[in-house]
């Protein structure tokens, strides 16, 4: 027989203080806001938007880098074509001309990566968080970095440097005490 059964009975008679009606309104408001955003994202996972938000800066940086590379390659090709035309007309040789597409693809392939840097200029400890589906808290660290990549064309000596900001979030599991 449990010695504490009477005490347990008395404890159960104690009723915890009720939450304020405002709390229900606040929870409803928070969930309603979520429902609206879910209905907008038809056919997408609910956390997809959050994931996109986290990596928007990285995506934007990569897109900017791609545009810069394209612009640089096109500029280099135009310059190269102009030089070839001048050389051909002045020399007036009987050599067969190289098709334009071939020249373009060769020129584009001449840029060789010469490395890159990843400079961490800010680290923020965002404290403990409860990760998705996990029963243990994780520490969230946010790194803000400036990534720089360099290419060089060994033939022409032209170099290309792309630099963009990036953000990385690292989750470190924290063991219980």
């Amino acid at each position, binding site marked *: 027989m449990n010695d504490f059964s009477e005490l347990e009975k008395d404890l159960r008679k104690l009723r915890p203080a009720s939450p304020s009606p405002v*709390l*229900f309104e606040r929870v409803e408001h928070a969930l309603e806001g979520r429902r609206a955003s879910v209905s907008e994202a038809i056919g997408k996972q609910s956390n997809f938007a959050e994931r996109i938000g986290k990596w928007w800066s990285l995506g934007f940086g990569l897109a900017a880098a791609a545009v810069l590379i394209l612009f640089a390659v096109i500029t280099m090709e135009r310059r190269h074509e102009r030089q070839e035309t001048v050389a051909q007309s002045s020399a007036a040789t009987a050599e067969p001309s190289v098709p334009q597409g071939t020249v373009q693809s060769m020129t584009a392939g001449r840029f060789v990566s010469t490395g890159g840097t990843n400079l961490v200029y800010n680290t923020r400890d965002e404290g403990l968080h409860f990760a998705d589906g996990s029963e*243990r808290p994780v520490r969230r660290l946010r790194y803000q970095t400036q990534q720089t990549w360099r290419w060089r064309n060994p033939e022409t000596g032209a170099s290309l440097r792309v630099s963009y900001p990036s953000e990385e979030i690292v989750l470190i599991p924290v063991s219980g005490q």
Partner: protein
Amino acid sequence: MEPTASYDNWRNCFSEVAPGLLLFARQWVQSAADAEDIVQEAFVKFWRRNHNIENRALLYSAVRSIAFDFIRRDMRRARREETFLAETEPAIEPNFELQDDTQSALAVAVDSLPRDQREVLVLKIWNDLTFSEIGGTLGISQNTAASRYRYALSNLKKALQPQ
């Protein structure tokens, strides 16, 4: 099929668990308003992720984790709370709806328990968690949870005995 959280029945679920969740949150913060902030954040997060509502340990873990975050966010508050908890003084705002002097004495005795015993007691009595679920919530073994519960009851009994 296991019951999962949905937007249709959150109010029923919240009405049922909110008083116990608030009492649990009050283990770390003395203000009822702060406890409501913590419970709101934990419940909304839990509901949004569409967790199985049978997995109550996860919900209580969320409350505990958010309560720790809350304390960390404001170090001055943390120092005040730690001092407060170390002294195990009764809460400023009542944790219970009291009906008579006997219940008041019992509530004071509960508030005076060491924190590790009190949180097990709160989860067991007012949240109906099993020792296994309590262990999962607090990151302790089932046996440790049961042992703390017995110590809590024993201490309460001593405290309530006439001098």
